């Protein structure tokens, strides 16, 4: 499987819990191919699982686009989780640890954000939600806000 720095995005549907397993496997394979270490792979797969479940549970299903990145110094992986669901009314509240409307632990968004290097949410009530997470293959420890 050739996954070089060139942009070759993979798009997967998110419509069932079996799809979540596919998303995890695809992210794992892609991250391993890009040279992510085991801990970073695990963090990426876990973040993908949280975000894909949000897309399924809160967005009513959607898709994920997985794109290999190369900025000249490092390789990376971008994952965009896209749904046409109801959107997030209060993003700041949704990003708070422990806040949940889905009966979970409320760690999906805030937890996933801590597992990657770059994180953004594009949402509007009634217009769906796109959550984008980026991680870079790195030897340097990530900054730890709050410590």
């Amino acid at each position: 499987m050739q996954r070089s720095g060139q942009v070759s995005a993979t798009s997967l549907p998110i419509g069932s819990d079996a799809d979540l397993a596919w998303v995890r496997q695809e992210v794992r394979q892609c991250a391993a191919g890009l040279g992510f270490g085991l801990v970073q792979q695990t963090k990426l797969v876990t973040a993908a699982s949280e975000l894909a479940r949000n897309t399924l549970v809160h967005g009513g299903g959607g898709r994920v686009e997985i794109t290999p990145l190369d900025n000249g110094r490092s390789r990376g992986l971008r994952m965009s989780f896209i749904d046409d669901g109801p959107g997030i009314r209060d993003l700041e509240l949704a990003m708070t640890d422990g806040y949940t409307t889905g009966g979970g632990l409320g760690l999906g968004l805030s937890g996933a954000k801590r597992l990657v290097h770059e994180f953004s949410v594009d949402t509007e009530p009634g217009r769906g939600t796109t959550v984008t997470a980026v991680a870079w293959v790195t030897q340097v420890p990530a900054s730890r806000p709050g410590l």
Partner: protein
Amino acid sequence: MSQPLPAHSAQVPVLALGDVLLVSLQGELHDGMAEQLQQDITQRISTDRMTGVVIDISGVDMVDSFLGRVLAEIASTARLLAARTVLAGMRPAVAITLVELGLTLPGLVTALDVDRAMELLNQRGS
């Protein structure tokens, strides 16, 4: 110690070792399977008078907040039915990721492997 007995209904095999249930999770676990497992374990504790549960996750390469919650709920439910649960064999990368995710599972007793988990249950049991 009696021979391990295979379970009837579970998609994840649940074995009985004496009065301890041994559950080995492997690879990809769908959400529905995790919830089914929770029901199977709870039922087996009650009908077969089990006093302990060991959940071996050495074959699991990812624990997200959903699976973490299911594991914590299995332990809580078992406790209400007078059985103790030990989570065995968590991989280091999974432990690092769980802490960063913010899911430290404070109520769960852990052991490095199944042998130590069984020891733990036997020590405190008799």
